[in-house]
């Protein structure tokens, strides 16, 4: 895996960490419980909780050593704090991230109503949740609209935003305006190109996402915000994953150099 990062020329990496021995959750819905609990979900969810509580931390320490030795900046983790995580499990998840040595993490599919229970562990471990945006901007419990993001930012100075400019645009939100208003609370962008009105992922440059405008805004104002490729468009796939990722990175380089 580390060789792939080096091959694409990406020094900055967001990675959820090793999951050695982690059971597979069955019947969950994008990291959250299903609307109707199934026996398989309940059983596997209990196993996942047990893994969070008891997995040896050595695998996380070892992963950190490997990234550091390779000269890569593993700057962020990824974790969904599911609605059915109790406080002990949330603490255990933060403890794992602490062992990884990350100071921020993408909250992935975490919802707004779980955020309050993340304030104490964020402070305890010094790890800032970067709330990851989606496109369901009409749902107040989703991390999606400018309003929901601003509510989160008011909850704790430890709370940050991982602005996924593709999803945010698909939810008919204005990424450029949000960066201008809240640049000091944005840790990183997820860069992809989607169409508005919950439209699909597109080849970069063919969607509605203001990729170049966002990048140049960061560049021109010296905002310390990472720009991270999240390759969700698989329409052409002319090359390998590494080759396609390099194209996306080069798209960003071209935008920043012009």
């Amino acid at each position, binding site marked *: 895996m580390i060789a792939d990062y080096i091959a*694409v020329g990406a*020094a900055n990496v967001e990675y959820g960490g090793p999951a050695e021995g982690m059971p597979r*959750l069955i019947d969950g819905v994008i990291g959250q419980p299903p609307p109707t609990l199934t026996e398989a979900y309940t059983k596997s969810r209990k196993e996942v909780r047990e893994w969070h509580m008891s997995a040896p931390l050595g695998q996380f320490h070892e992963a950190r050593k490997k990234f550091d030795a390779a000269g890569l900046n593993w700057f962020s983790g990824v974790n969904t704090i599911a609605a059915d995580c109790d406080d002990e499990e949330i603490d255990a998840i933060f403890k794992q991230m602490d062992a990884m040595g990350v100071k921020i993490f993408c909250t992935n599919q975490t919802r707004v109503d779980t955020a309050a229970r993340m304030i104490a562990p964020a402070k305890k471990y010094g790890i800032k949740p970067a709330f990851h945006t989606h496109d369901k901007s009409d749902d107040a419990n989703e991390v999606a609209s400018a309003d929901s993001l601003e509510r989160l930012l008011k909850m704790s100075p430890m709370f940050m935003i991982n602005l996924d400019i593709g999803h945010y645009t698909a939810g008919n939100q204005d990424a450029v305006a949000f960066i201008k208003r809240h640049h000091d609370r944005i840790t990183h962008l997820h860069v992809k190109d989607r169409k508005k009105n919950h439209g699909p992922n597109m080849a970069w440059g063919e969607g509605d996402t203001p990729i170049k405008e966002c990048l140049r805004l960061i560049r021109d104002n010296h905002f310390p915000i990472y720009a991270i490729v999240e390759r969700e468009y698989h329409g052409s796939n002319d090359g390998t994953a590494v080759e396609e990722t390099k194209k996306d990175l080069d798209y960003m380089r071209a935008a920043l150099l012009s």
Partner: protein
Amino acid sequence: MQTRREFGKMAAAVLTSSALSARAGWAAGKLDSTVKGVKLGVIAPVIQPAQTASRKHPSSAKAADRR
């Protein structure tokens, strides 16, 4: 105003220069993907979808469930 075609040509030119700069970065002992002060990077599943799916979304390994 740059057309998409013009931008594509520029991106191709950057592809070559970035390969060179990556090598230069390694020559200095550390990879650097900072361009004009902006730190560029990747999220792990970009490259390794299968390996990190369970970590990103413990509920499912289906690609459609990823974000």
